[in-house]
């Protein structure tokens, strides 16, 4: 069995599976049960001046029979006094000394406020701190959370203030509600952050009730934007993790968050540069015990790959992620339909005809049976037909050797500019 232990910027954990700061980490009772179920770490529900929540605060987007494809909330940070949380953190850490307990913190952007909370929290023996610069609603209206996380200078300054007094590793949690997340990540690193975590939730409105015209959720007929998370946000989170991982100016470990619900998701985030991961929505949907399947799945995967430690996955796909301008324009794939597996639903034909390059022909074979065939020379290899095809193995995307040397867009533009440069010189002469 592979070694699942990780070390995120000095924070040791028996495995890479952490609970994200959210309702599942609200109390000692919950975190201790999570550890018993197998979670390696927990980021406590964000601590700060206790707030008052609204009633009716969650909503979900169900899509085509899949419940909770996306999850929306307007919940704020903890509503319990700091002392109560600290007592439970202390007890939890005492019972589970080998597990990672991280305190998530959010206070007003004032130096003395950060100093005060960091000292009080570290006194009870947490393994690290996570600065919540990501909550997109409520707290942001008061200048905290995403409001300060959207100002790179303020992220850097607050991180510096924390680092002035912190004795445990400091993770800065980033908001995705920003144009370029690497800018904020770099400022966190400049402020001395030991690691970053991402993403927090994405600004969202789950829906509008077309009968009552109320927002979903609504609080007595009134709504406000919330934060979106769950499986729907995974591709956004993964790309943001990848962007930070390949940015040399960031250069600190990453805790990956956003839409993770299976061991395969975990592998993907780690391959894209995360040292460990955090989960919220999947636990809210299915409970703590989903971690059992995640641990088994990850263990089997590592064994199959012949890897002795989960840390061997970290960042292995990052070099395969670059800019569009560095992709090979001469790489060519085409669709091939496998008659044996095709159920003749015609979805590929319709998709190619209406939305791509009109190159799937409807033919009749020798037995008089309707068959679909791709005209490979006209196929641009967009993948659409294989995406819409409901039958496994009915469409393969095949890489063809075009015979041409690899050439990227950037190389092409360089070649044209060199060529034209020498030609106009000749003309001038």
């Amino acid at each position, binding site marked *: 069995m592979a070694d699942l232990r990780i070390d995120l910027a000095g924070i040791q954990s028996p495995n890479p599976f952490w609970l994200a700061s959210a309702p599942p980490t609200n109390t000692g009772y919950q975190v201790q049960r999570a550890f018993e179920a197998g979670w390696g770490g927990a980021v406590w529900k964000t601590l700060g001046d206790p707030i008052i929540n609204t009633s009716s605060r969650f909503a979900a987007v169900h899509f085509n029979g899949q419940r909770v494809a996306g999850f929306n909330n307007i919940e704020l940070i903890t509503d319990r006094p700091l002392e109560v949380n600290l007592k439970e953190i202390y007890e939890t850490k005492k019972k589970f000394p080998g597990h990672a307990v991280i305190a998530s913190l959010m206070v007003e952007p004032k130096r003395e406020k950060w100093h005060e909370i960091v000292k009080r929290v570290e006194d009870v023996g947490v393994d690290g701190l996570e600065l919540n610069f990501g909550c997109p609603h409520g707290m942001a209206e008061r200048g905290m959370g995403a409001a300060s996380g959207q100002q790179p200078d303020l992220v850097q300054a607050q991180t510096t203030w924390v680092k002035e007094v912190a004795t445990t590793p400091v993770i800065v949690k980033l908001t995705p509600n920003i144009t370029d997340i690497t800018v904020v990540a770099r400022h966190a690193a400049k402020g001395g952050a030991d690691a970053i975590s991402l993403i927090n939730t994405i600004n969202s409105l789950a829906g509008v009730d077309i009968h009552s015209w109320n927002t979903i959720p609504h609080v007595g007929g009134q709504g406000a934007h919330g934060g979106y998370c769950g499986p729907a946000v995974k591709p956004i989170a993964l790309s943001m993790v990848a962007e930070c991982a390949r940015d040399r100016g960031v250069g600190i470990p990453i805790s990956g968050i956003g839409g993770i619900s299976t061991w395969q998701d975990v592998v993907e985030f780690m391959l894209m540069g995360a040292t460990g991961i955090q989960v919220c929505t999947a636990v809210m949907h299915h409970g703590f015990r989903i971690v059992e399947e995640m641990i088994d799945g990850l263990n089997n995967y590592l064994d199959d790959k012949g890897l002795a430690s989960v840390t061997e996955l970290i960042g292995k796909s990052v070099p395969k992620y670059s800019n569009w301008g560095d992709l090979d*324009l*001469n790489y060519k794939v085409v669709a091939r339909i496998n008659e044996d597996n095709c159920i003749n639903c015609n979805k590929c034909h319709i998709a190619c005809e209406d939305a791509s*390059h009109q*190159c799937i022909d409807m033919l009749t074979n020798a037995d008089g049976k309707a068959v679909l065939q791709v*005209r490979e*020379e*006209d196929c*641009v290899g967009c993948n659409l037909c294989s995406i819409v095809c409901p039958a496994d193995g009915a469409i393969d995307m095949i890489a063809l050797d075009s015979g*041409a*040397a690899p*050439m990227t867009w950037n*190389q*092409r533009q360089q*070649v*044209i500019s060199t*060529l*034209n440069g*020498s*030609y*106009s*010189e*000749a003309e001038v*002469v």
Partner: protein
Amino acid sequence: MSAFAEFDKERQAVDKLLQQGYGIVNIKEDLDGAEVTFIRSGSDGDPVKLLLLTADARKHVTTAVFAGIRPAAPVEASI
């Protein structure tokens, strides 16, 4: 005409010039496609221009230049 047939027509025109000893000396791209200027290697004859419309043909000419299929010394020849 299929997209491939359109491309193939343009590719054949390009390849014919290349086979005749022409080299690509200028590619001007604008909203309407790529105007490619060819000059025959070692000659000071008039350049030949082709307007390429298809993406694959525009890729084909730059791949040819990228792979080094250029006239031996068109610049010196025209001086």
